């Protein structure tokens, strides 16, 4: 591979994770945060930093750049489908935050209560600790026997149609930006 093509690959690898993460985090702000409940101890905006790190890492890991003199191909894998629940098997090495966001992205039909492991005896409910959802009807039925707050409100993202196109972003500005920087770098040499 020529030096200039190596330069192009380096530019893509450096620029892509940040560009894509920024765009997705903007969508997160615009399309998810407005729906959250301010009183929810597991509200998605508390997961912002963790989600950003998750995106940056997985985009870098999945970035596949093939540049040849005959043509170039850039495949950008966004996120980890298994951790977000976007494939057959859920990767259990995920975190509460990623599970919460993955659930919101997929949407959910019906009313649910978000249970966290620390939510007993009226203590402040933990943000972490393997959260899970229980159908409202089942929760109300079982809460007293488990010492949970029987009046806990239903999760704000219940009956939420999801954001199925969350990962679909316009990459044209990225291509323009990389092309410009590539041109500048070539000129400077």
């Amino acid at each position, binding site marked *: 591979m020529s030096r200039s093509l190596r330069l192009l690959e380096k530019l893509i690898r450096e620029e892509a994770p940040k560009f894509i993460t920024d765009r997705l985090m903007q969508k997160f702000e615009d399309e998810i945060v407005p729906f959250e409940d301010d009183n929810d101890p597991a509200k998605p905006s508390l997961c912002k930093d963790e989600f950003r790190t998750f995106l940056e890492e997985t985009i870098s890991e999945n970035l596949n750049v093939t540049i040849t003199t005959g043509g170039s191909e850039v495949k950008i894998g966004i996120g980890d489908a298994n*951790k977000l*629940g976007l494939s057959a098997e*859920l990767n259990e090495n*995920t975190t509460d935050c990623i599970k919460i966001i993955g659930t919101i992205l997929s949407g959910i039909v*019906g009313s649910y209560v978000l249970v966290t492991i620390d939510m007993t005896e009226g203590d402040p409910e933990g943000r972490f600790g393997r959260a*899970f*959802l229980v159908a409202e009807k089942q929760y109300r039925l079982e809460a007293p026997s488990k010492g949970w707050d029987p009046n806990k409100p239903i999760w704000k993202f219940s*009956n939420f149609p999801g954001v*199925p*196109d969350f990962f679909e972003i316009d990459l044209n500005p990225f291509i323009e930006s990389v092309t410009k920087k590539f041109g500048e770098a070539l000129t400077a040499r």
Partner: protein
Amino acid sequence: MKKLRKEDLSLHHCIRFNILDEYIETDYNVPLQYLPDISTPTSMVYQAVSTRLPSPTSLGRGWVYLDVVPGSGIIYESMPEQQNMVVVYDSLGGVISGSEYMVDYVDGRVITSGTVSPAAVTYRYFYVALCNDWEDVIASDVPVVVPALESFSKEGFQLGGGRLVPRRGRLYIFASNQAERDDLAELLYDGINQRCCPNQNWTHGSMLDWDGTFNHNYLYEVIQYHSQLQFENVNYRMITIPLMSIPTRDMTMLSDLNRYRARVDFTMFHWEEG
């Protein structure tokens, strides 16, 4: 009715009768119960009392109103009211002629003018609910399919006055178990991938009237100077709701609408002449 609604209706019709026709079930000899409150001496209403689950008349289901041969679908050019999908019996088990009653296909009712006394009915019904909106899934019971056209653009040709109209859509699948989800997903995928369906004009409305009876004014007619509705970019995706994964503890998860889900994304497009 604007074009988007017509295309949406055409898509529903195609899914119902050309793809999901494998999921038509028969309910035999179901007792008919007279409903005095909504009957008059010349219009006697009988409700089929089915014990089937999911209920054949739950939202998005209903009785089959066209004669359908599973696997072959329907013949688009002639779509009269069914002759073989609903059979009504009197108390002696004799078949009552179809000219003696009307059928409310949505609510599962038989309406007579009082000249006959229906006692039971055998009918075919749609096993898979086909709902319009995400919210409707709660009112139905799995399996449910929700077709949704979510965005579109209209692109002019480089030459001439015509347009290409791509509409992006999704089929949301909610099933009662893994096998059902997989079967439904593959059936739907194969049913639209590289296929097309007529772009109907619905000149005199849809096939059922507001009261659930067959609309005899229905006219099969495609939109002039428009191509058929074609499908591309069909993709299947299974959906696992991460928060539904309950950690080990003394808690059982009841059956749930969200447990077995999948999604088929597609682009539906057609050409319009200028």
